């Protein structure tokens, strides 16, 4: 069984501590609760379904808002299901998109079954192979500190695979109604007239 240093709730708090106006997309399950654990924010689009598509939602958002930072925080299982999206994103090279994968090598919501990363699949190598040059694996506090100090300002497509341990924080569930999450996000980002279109 894996025994990594980093705790997911500590990691999320560091990555988003300087988020300012960054736009946040999460993956299903654990990373959704992680983002919610920092408090609600209208510029979070909480993804509750459609496993495998979080990075693509983030790409569409990043392309439509090139001046805004977009961070997608997802898990290893969700990333594996949408692994082809790394190649699609690499073709576009959006400078305002950062992909962060919380990798505990487990399907956390379904009984902690081992994912492919637990069998050796190397997501950061796959990301490099797909064409995302700034791709790294993060296992230590020092590496995390470097990432958290620049993720909200870096103007380059990045992929960060963060090895996290099995410690879980309190369950924090954000709002669930998709149409509301969508409209609230659009109003906060685009202004109230966006809802009159």
């Amino acid at each position, binding site marked *: 069984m894996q025994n990594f240093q980093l705790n997911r709730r500590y990691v999320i708090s560091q990555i988003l501590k300087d988020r300012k106006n960054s736009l946040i997309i999460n993956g299903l399950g654990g990373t959704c609760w992680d983002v919610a654990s920092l408090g609600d924010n209208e510029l979070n689009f909480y993804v509750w379904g459609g496993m495998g598509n979080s990075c*693509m939602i983030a790409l569409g958002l*990043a392309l439509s808002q090139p001046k805004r930072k977009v961070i997608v925080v997802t898990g290893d299982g969700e990333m594996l299901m949408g692994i082809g999206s790394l190649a699609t994103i690499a073709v576009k090279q959006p400078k305002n998109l950062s992909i962060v994968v919380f990798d505990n090598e487990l399907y956390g919501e379904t009984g902690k079954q081992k994912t492919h990363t637990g069998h050796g699949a190397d997501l950061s190598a796959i990301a490099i192979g797909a064409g995302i040059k700034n791709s790294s694996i993060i296992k230590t506090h020092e590496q995390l500190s470097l990432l958290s100090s620049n993720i909200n300002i870096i103007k380059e497509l990045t992929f960060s695979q963060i090895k996290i341990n099995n410690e879980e924080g309190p369950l924090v569930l954000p709002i669930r109604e998709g149409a509301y999450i969508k409209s609230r996000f659009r109003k906060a980002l685009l202004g109230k007239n966006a809802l009159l279109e």
Partner: protein
Amino acid sequence: MVNKFEKNLLNWPLDIYDILREDKIRQIAYVPDAGHKSLIEYCQNDKNMNMVSLTSEEEGVGLLAGAWLGGEKGVLLMQSSGVGNCINALASITRACDFPLLMLITMRGEWNEFNPWQVPMGKATEKILSTLDINVSRCEKSEEVSETVNAMMGLAYKSNCASAVLLSQRLIGSKNFKE
């Protein structure tokens, strides 16, 4: 931008392109299909259109949800087999959140189809979309395309719906395996 004087009245891909341009469609998500070849080329030559080539059609469903979150409209171009790849994303993202979506789908597996492996998904395409409560309209003739795409665009982006236009194999011509 295509010179209007070059426009053949029955050039339905150009009719579609004109609608996409006039409606300020910014993200073109596609998995190539021979039936979409001309439209993809028109869009590639338009600086205002951002072409996103997908590894699988379902990526386009997520992409265009994200585009809408950021204030841009898009379109998803694919062939009918791609609808099968999109099912969960259409249900669990587009429908679950009431995202607008316009899909332009070239049909395989019907009129004079040569490849029997295309037929079951071709037959299932419209039923699957209807089962997901997605609006579907079908074009058999060139002169129907412009009006139909325009109407389904309106349904998608004025009434916040998921809409699909099926461009029939009779319209696009069946694939010739001899060339």
